[in-house]
């Protein structure tokens, strides 16, 4: 890098150590026009990922029964056999993140020593949450604490058939509540955010400090060298596109089912294929408007609106629910989380197979399969933050927000069940548990409606940021490829979701997406090595 910065640059970005490579961003790209639309796509990642996805959808639709069984078995086999691997890897990610906060590497700044942040804290934080977790918090905020509580307090807790965490606490309401909350927070706290943080930090470091294209393969430069520009890199990038698109499309399909169940519950709108397709089309249409409006005017603004709505809903439940119990519960749950954390994250010598393999290991695989997408999106918007600031904001603060959210929603639901004997929160089907909880509070028509809007908008914010990410990867790391490509990916994602919803096979492909978590765990472990290597050569 030269000090001779040209006119127009406000200040030099300070010393950084770019990687010297002959590779130019976009050198393998094909630029052409299809009708009025310009294209600037990576050869061959764009074509291979597009065609493979179409082929997979056809195979799944054609051989629904056997494909569903095969992918489901694959997922169960992976999360069952390699549970120790998933648990150990996630622990490593958390430990590395904590180490980076306290080590001198924490001073390294993403984008060069003198880089200034692209986004304010509020905009940045809203985007992190909306892309990474918003939708899950809506669905599992009530249902997961209730599930763990119920299995822990049940008479059979601790037997091989039980799904209780750590053997549960049969018959002991207080202990089961603590365990239920701790186990839920465990799945939504440090570990998932550490997974996102590792991927995001690796990508941001290699793009903004090392000058490599903003795409998954760049992270592997320290390991594979120039080979990442060849087939090794094509495979890594294609896998990332694959995991992102199927992760999003299957979530979109399930989300439409859940949102239409909610609409049916509140307004009595019948749940039909037509209503679900209309929902997917509507979500896709809003996502399209958002990606076409761009990162600042679309994605960021929508994320901020959603954060405000979510905060209002949270505040409402906090105020009309058991307020004092929730506020004290926050600190209590934090303490319980810390107390159970060593046991819950221990990969070896445990007897709670159902919980460890069916919940924890599944969750870790699921977060990891989402990590290329969320990580890349976080990386894109994090330039200018120091590593310490970055990890504090991607790991610690979101974890605290998750604890608070779970305390408010789950804590209220458990209190309704235990103190008021309100059975609906247990009996309602999974997708309606949130609404069941809200129903026992005042103004339920309004809050349920806000909840539905939140669910839908969180899908939009996942869908638009996902389309941006897929577009960047399939454009070889170029962030200024023609907008028509974003439109293509957002539409494609909606169509895949509709095809799977109507033809069946959502569960099969979700299992497939989760299965990509296994190879990506290896990818992430290598990324840890790459991060440390990369940070060592940066000026601090």
């Amino acid at each position, binding site marked *: *890098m*030269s000090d*001779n*910065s*040209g*006119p*127009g*640059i406000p200040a*030099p*970005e300070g010393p950084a150590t*770019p990687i010297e490579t002959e590779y*130019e*961003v*976009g*050198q393998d790209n094909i630029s052409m026009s299809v*009708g*009025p*639309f310009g294209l600037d796509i990576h050869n061959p990642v764009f074509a291979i990922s597009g065609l493979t996805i179409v082929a997979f959808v056809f195979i799944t639709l054609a051989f629904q029964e056997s494909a569903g069984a095969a992918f489901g078995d694959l997922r169960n086999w992976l999360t069952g056999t390699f549970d120790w691997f998933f648990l150990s890897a996630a622990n490593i990610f958390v430990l590395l993140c904590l180490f980076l906060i306290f080590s001198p590497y924490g001073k390294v700044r993403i*984008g*060069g020593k003198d880089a200034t942040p*692209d986004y304010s804290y509020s905009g940045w934080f809203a985007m992190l949450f909306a892309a990474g977790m918003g939708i899950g918090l809506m669905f599992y905020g009530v249902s997961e604490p209730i599930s763990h509580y119920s299995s822990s307090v049940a008479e059979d807790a601790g037997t091989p058939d039980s799904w209780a965490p750590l053997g549960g606490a049969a018959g002991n309401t207080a202990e089961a509540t603590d365990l239920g909350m701790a186990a839920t927070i465990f799945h939504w706290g440090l570990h998932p955010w550490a997974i996102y943080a590792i991927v995001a930090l690796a990508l941001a470091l290699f*793009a*903004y400090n090392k*000058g*490599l*294209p*903003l795409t998954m393969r760049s992270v592997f430069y320290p390991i594979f060298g120039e080979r990442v520009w060849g087939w090794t890199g094509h495979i890594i990038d294609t896998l990332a596109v694959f995991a992102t698109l199927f992760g999003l499309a299957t979530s979109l399909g399930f989300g439409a089912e859940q949102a239409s169940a909610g609409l049916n519950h509140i307004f009595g709108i019948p749940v039909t294929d037509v209503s679900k397709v209309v929902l997917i089309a509507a979500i896709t249409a809003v996502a399209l408007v958002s990606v*076409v*409006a*761009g*990162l*600042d*005017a*679309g994605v960021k603004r929508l994320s901020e609106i959603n954060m405000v709505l979510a905060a209002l809903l949270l505040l409402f439940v906090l105020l009309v629910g058991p307020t004092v119990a929730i506020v004290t519960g926050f600190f209590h749950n934090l303490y319980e989380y810390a107390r159970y954390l060593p046991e819950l994250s221990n990969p070896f010598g445990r007897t709670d197979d159902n919980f460890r393999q069916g919940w924890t290991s599944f969750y870790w695989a699921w977060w990891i399969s989402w990590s290329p997408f969320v990580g890349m999106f976080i990386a*894109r*918007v994090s*330039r200018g933050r120091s590593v310490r600031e970055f990890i504090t904001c991607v790991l610690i603060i979101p974890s605290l927000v998750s604890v608070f959210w779970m305390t408010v929603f789950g804590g209220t639901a458990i209190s309704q069940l235990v103190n008021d004997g309100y059975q609906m929160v247990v009996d309602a089907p999974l997708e309606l548990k949130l609404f069941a909880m809200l129903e026992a509070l005042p103004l339920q028509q309004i809050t349920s409606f806000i909840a539905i809007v939140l669910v839908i908008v969180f899908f939009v914010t996942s869908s638009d940021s996902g389309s941006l990410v897929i577009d960047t990867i399939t454009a070889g*790391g*170029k*962030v*200024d*490829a*023609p*907008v*028509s490509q*974003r439109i293509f990916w957002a539409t494609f994602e909606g169509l895949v979701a509709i095809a799977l919803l109507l033809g069946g096979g959502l569960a099969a492909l979700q299992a497939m997406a989760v299965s990509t978590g296994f190879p990506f765990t290896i990818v992430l472990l290598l990324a840890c090595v790459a991060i440390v290597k990369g940070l060592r050569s940066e000026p601090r």
Partner: protein
Amino acid sequence: MYKKIMVPVDLAHVDKLARALDTAAEMAKLYNAPVTYVGVTSSAPGPLGHNPDEYAEKLSGFTASQASTHGIQTDGKTVVSHDPAVDLDDALIDAAKDTGCDLIVMATHIPNVADHFWPSNGGRLATHTNASVFLVRG
């Protein structure tokens, strides 16, 4: 008549800008006005540089060559945008205000179907700045 001329340039496609660049240079000579070439980039690594500094260096090389080719006074301005594919217009509007130009000369393409849906860059610049806008067919 004109005191300062701004010319938005896409450094990746300089070959398509020849007529616009010549036009701008002729106007600059006629009115003895300096020309500011404006390039929009993102902070992520791209084909034109690993970071905005490298991009700015390329742009200053370009402005220097325009100055020596046409014998006019030039400078360059790099605008960093979060999402250049979408925010190009806004970046150029800001640049026009910053430079205080009163004439913008820019290359345009032959209109197609997409132009019915997306407003043209030139049209937006004319709407949102005080400068005159001269669109040059390539």
